[in-house]
């Protein structure tokens, strides 16, 4: 078990293994994504209130759920970086931050577009959108700190620490924003749990899309982590070999 854990820490091993996984993941993602999107666009019945905007949910909810998972992921990677000094964990954390920021930005944009017909405005200080916006700021902070510190080693540790502090804060922020919001104005009936009639024809495609987008997240994380590995290990022989072999 531990041996496996530490082997995973070897960038070269990860690079080789992820190269084997990638095609399978891509196939799986393409299949799930096509099924999910076609289902969502063609077969999901219109909502009696929201009409066809219900189809936005199949993009917004998966993207938002992953952007929420990003901070815990970075915090776990941060703990591994600080405790076991595993370089791979830092590479993953470094790559996860911008990808997470992109997911958060897309979640915010799709949330705004979904909300427009309901609120009559593109932006509302809804609890979910607000806490997502603040999480976006936190991610920008981590990225800014990473680019500000020159020494990669110090940057790794500093960002690991900030990610941990941020991850502790995210639930606090979420709770306080919800508390602030619910007391200010009645919660908009925009949340999923309030759609009482929630049959399988609604949630099955949603689950498929969530899986598809999760795999997409994993793929893009692996892709940029592989680049990061090449960059950091560029002086080692196996990377030199790859550079020499690859057709560009």
């Amino acid at each position, binding site marked *: 078990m531990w041996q496996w854990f530490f082997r995973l820490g*070897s960038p070269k091993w990860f690079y080789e293994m992820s190269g084997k996984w990638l095609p399978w993941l891509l196939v799986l993602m393409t299949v799930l994504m096509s099924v999910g999107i076609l289902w969502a666009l063609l077969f999901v019945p219109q909502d009696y209130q929201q009409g066809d905007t219900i189809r936005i949910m199949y993009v917004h909810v998966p993207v938002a759920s992953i952007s929420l998972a990003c901070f815990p992921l970075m915090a776990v990677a941060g703990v591994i970086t600080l405790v076991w000094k595993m370089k791979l964990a830092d590479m993953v954390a470094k790559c996860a931050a911008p990808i997470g920021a992109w997911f958060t930005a897309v979640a915010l944009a799709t949330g705004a577009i979904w909300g427009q017909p309901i609120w009559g405005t593109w932006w509302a200080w809804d609890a979910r959108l607000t806490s997502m916006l603040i999480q976006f700021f936190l991610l920008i902070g981590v990225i800014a700190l990473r680019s500000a510190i020159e020494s990669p*080693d*110090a940057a790794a540790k500093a960002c690991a620490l900030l990610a941990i502090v941020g991850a502790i804060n995210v639930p606090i922020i979420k709770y306080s924003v919800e508390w602030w919001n619910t007391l200010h104005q009645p919660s908009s009936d925009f949340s999923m749990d309030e759609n009482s009639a929630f049959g399988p024809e609604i949630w099955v495609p949603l689950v498929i899309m969530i899986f598809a987008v999760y795999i997409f997240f994993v793929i893009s994380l692996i892709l940029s982590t592989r680049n990061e590995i090449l960059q950091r290990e560029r*002086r080692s*022989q*196996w990377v030199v070999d790859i550079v020499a072999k690859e057709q560009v």
Partner: protein
Amino acid sequence: MASSHVFHSSTKAFSAILGYTSASFLAPHSPRYRVYVDIFRTSMAASNSVSSHSSQAPVAPVLLQARALFCERDERVLFDNLEFSLHAGELLQVQGSNGSGKTTLLRILCGLNSSYEGELFWEGVAIDEDRETFLASLLYLGHRVGVNKILTARENLRWSAALHAPKTDQDIDAALEAVGLMGYADISCRNMSAGQQQRVSLARLLLSPARLWVLDEPFTTLDVRGVKILENLLAAHVAKGGAVLVTTHHHLDVPCPLRRLNLDK
């Protein structure tokens, strides 16, 4: 980690026989993930400049020991597989050209820099395991003197003494006098020259109970008298059974056992 204790005691026996530790062939090197070729840049130039020392039969205990130290900065290997030990009653001068990693080495030993590989022991115990004991025995004076310019000399020393062992103002004044700053106790450090600030910093040496002094270029801003004072302080500390690790380009003229560690090729 119990194994490291056992292992260390055997090293101690070795060091007693050999005079200094060269246990590199014993150290089980942790497999490092590094493909490019290791360059052995560092070698220990252990030369006893005081001839009487090497002939002494009972060897002083090892206080500080470094094993298989590796450090790399900006894609350049500063030192690899560096091994040395520092005995009680010994002065070790770290030498090397600019950028050879002298300051980095001292900061690694103190724990200010953690981007290294290898093991460090204080009195036979891994420093990572018992940092507190090590820190209680350590006094580090770095490039930056650690003197706040707004405070007076006395206020500065009062604080730094309180971190280790609180001292009375009489002690502090006596220490200032010993480093040639009599009458400067109440002067704000802003109004002192660089050399005088350095002397304030040196007064810590007199106030601290630490057994190990780690001094990074302590001679740079000192005048001739200051140099003499510091050399005498070093000798006195060593004579009491303390240990000193110092980097300097200055030619040390001290009446005590002196060894040199050269970080250059």
